[in-house]
């Protein structure tokens, strides 16, 4: 659903999957580039929107929503009624937040899951990795993306990004308090998406264990986002720090870069790439669970 930038990049990722088959691309603009590209790949297309999908619901199992939060909120109950599982890439927040390497099991039995934000997909794994081996009273992330890679939806609703991501740092990452900051950088050539994750560390952590947990998690994300990498070893600083989640003796900083696979967007737009790659991963997990259930 949605033949814009995200939908089109997602289509190319889904085409590469051996667990999913892309059977339709649904838009509302007959002249859209995304629909033309889908036709070129031999995929059935329509510009009649979600109503077309609902009429043909029996032909499909999963719908990936890459339209807007408003559209998704309106159609989510109808998808469910029609027996379609929804993977939501908009900020509609109908279903629970999912990050593939953290809580993919959440996705398996839910009618609807939400992919949070690009910054959330890039940073929540790190917070979760630290939280696996140490208490994290406070986590903070700074996500910097190239101005060119942020569409009008993101720009007009920048609060959605900060609030949704902050909540995911807590609910999925496991931090007691989360804070997210987003920066747009207009430099030319465009900068590759970068993220800095700060985790406050409560008493009793082991530096080596924390560092290893982070590095292992990065490798897991690399399985579906090859351009996801640490720019250096995790940096440990001694505090004490008075954070909004309480005082902490130390913090760890992970500096991350996300280079996209350039399926449809240029490589600098790692922020868009990580969303579509994560959504593909979630779709594959849902499909695997359905196949298992029916066999």
């Amino acid at each position, binding site marked *: 659903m949605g033949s814009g930038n995200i939908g089109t990049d997602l289509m190319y990722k889904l085409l590469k999957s051996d667990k999913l088959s892309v059977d339709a691309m649904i838009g509302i603009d007959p002249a859209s580039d995304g629909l033309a590209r889908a036709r070129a790949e031999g995929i059935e297309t329509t510009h009649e929107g979600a109503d077309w999908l609902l009429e043909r619901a029996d032909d499909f199992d999963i719908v990936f929503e890459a339209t807007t939060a408003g559209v998704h909120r309106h159609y989510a109950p109808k998808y469910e009624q029609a027996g379609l599982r929804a993977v939501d890439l908009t900020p509609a927040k109908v279903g629970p937040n999912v990050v593939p390497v953290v809580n993919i099991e959440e996705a398996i039995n839910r009618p609807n899951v939400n992919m949070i934000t690009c910054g959330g997909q890039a940073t929540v794994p790190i917070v979760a990795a630290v939280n696996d081996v140490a208490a994290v009273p406070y986590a903070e992330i700074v996500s910097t993306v190239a101005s060119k890679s942020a569409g009008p939806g993101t720009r007009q609703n920048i609060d959605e990004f900060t*609030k949704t991501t902050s909540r995911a740092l807590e609910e999925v990452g496991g931090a007691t308090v989360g804070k997210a900051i987003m920066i747009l950088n*207009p430099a030319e050539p465009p900068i590759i998406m970068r993220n800095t994750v700060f985790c406050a560390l409560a008493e009793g952590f082991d530096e080596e264990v924390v560092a290893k947990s982070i590095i292992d998690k990065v490798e897991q994300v690399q399985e579906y986002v090859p351009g996801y990498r640490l720019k250096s070893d995790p940096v440990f600083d001694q505090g004490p720090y008075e954070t909004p989640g309480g005082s902490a003796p130390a913090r760890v900083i992970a500096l991350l870069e996300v280079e996209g696979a350039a399926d449809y967007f240029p490589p600098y737009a790692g922020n868009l790439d990580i969303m579509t790659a994560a959504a593909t991963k979630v779709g594959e997990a849902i499909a695997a669970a359905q196949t298992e259930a029916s066999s």
Partner: protein
Amino acid sequence: MTDFRLTDSTLRDGSHALAHQFTEDQVRAIVGGLDLAGVPVIEVSHGDGLGGSSFNYGFSHTDEKLLLKAAVDEANRAKIAVLMLPGIGTKEDLREVADIGVQVARIATHCTEADISEQHIALAKDLGMETVGFLMMAHMISPEELLDQAKLMESYGADCVYVVDSAGAMTMDDARERVALLKANLESQVGIHAHNNLSLAVANSIAALDEGVDQIDGCTTGLGAGAGNCPTEILVAALERSGVHTGVDPFTVMDVAEEVVRPLQPHQGVIDRDGLLLGYAGVYGSFLLHAKRAAERFGVDSKDILLELGRRGAVGGQEDMIIDVAVELERQAAESQASA
């Protein structure tokens, strides 16, 4: 009737110089003094705006909402203003400060990203606040490009749009050209916010006034990010000597500077090499103290950090990039030592 309106930002931009450690008592003393001197607008916020208290920018000593309550309580004539950067602060912050009694909301974006401020400017207007659009790092783009962005902010409802020289990189011609073009093409007011890296903050403000600027920012003693801001008491004195009516009593504001703010200042307002380099290379002023700290932490030169940030085109808010650059410089130093 004054010839322009002064906003003192000691308690916002000056917060950078004190690593965001202002206390309620200090806020009361400064607001009380500036109010008595006749300063019409006083800005109070974390240095990076509402919601800036963080690992990335430094945690505030005292919650800025408490500082704002104290400021509103202390001011008799002056309006209290806040700064907020979309992406750091949120609309909830604006609602909270409107309830506290803040009357001016200044919404800041990088000079090319005005369109992220639409909802915030509109909300501030809805809440009944006077609203300023604040285009940071305005030296980085041409006056024509700046005008396009200023028009966006005006279209969202901004009562005034500021030319903000966050890096202290503008010459007097740079300031003059930008203010003149905005004045000629906007219905809204135009403001200037100068930094002193090239020792031109007062001169640029006066040049802007020649072009008809409506609002000017200062900080008492120049207390502010980077090499400091346009010193309020010096601006007032220089303008009064030039026959410009500031509405501020020069002697009272000098007393506030000398007796209230200067004792808090960690170092006298000297433009050292790092401060000058920021202006020369056009690097965001707030990076200065963070770069000095990172230089010490990673055993590298702060000058190299600042120049590399300039090369990478870092924009306001990217303080995390300082750690990134410092770590990389440390690694390069280790590698060249190993190969030597």
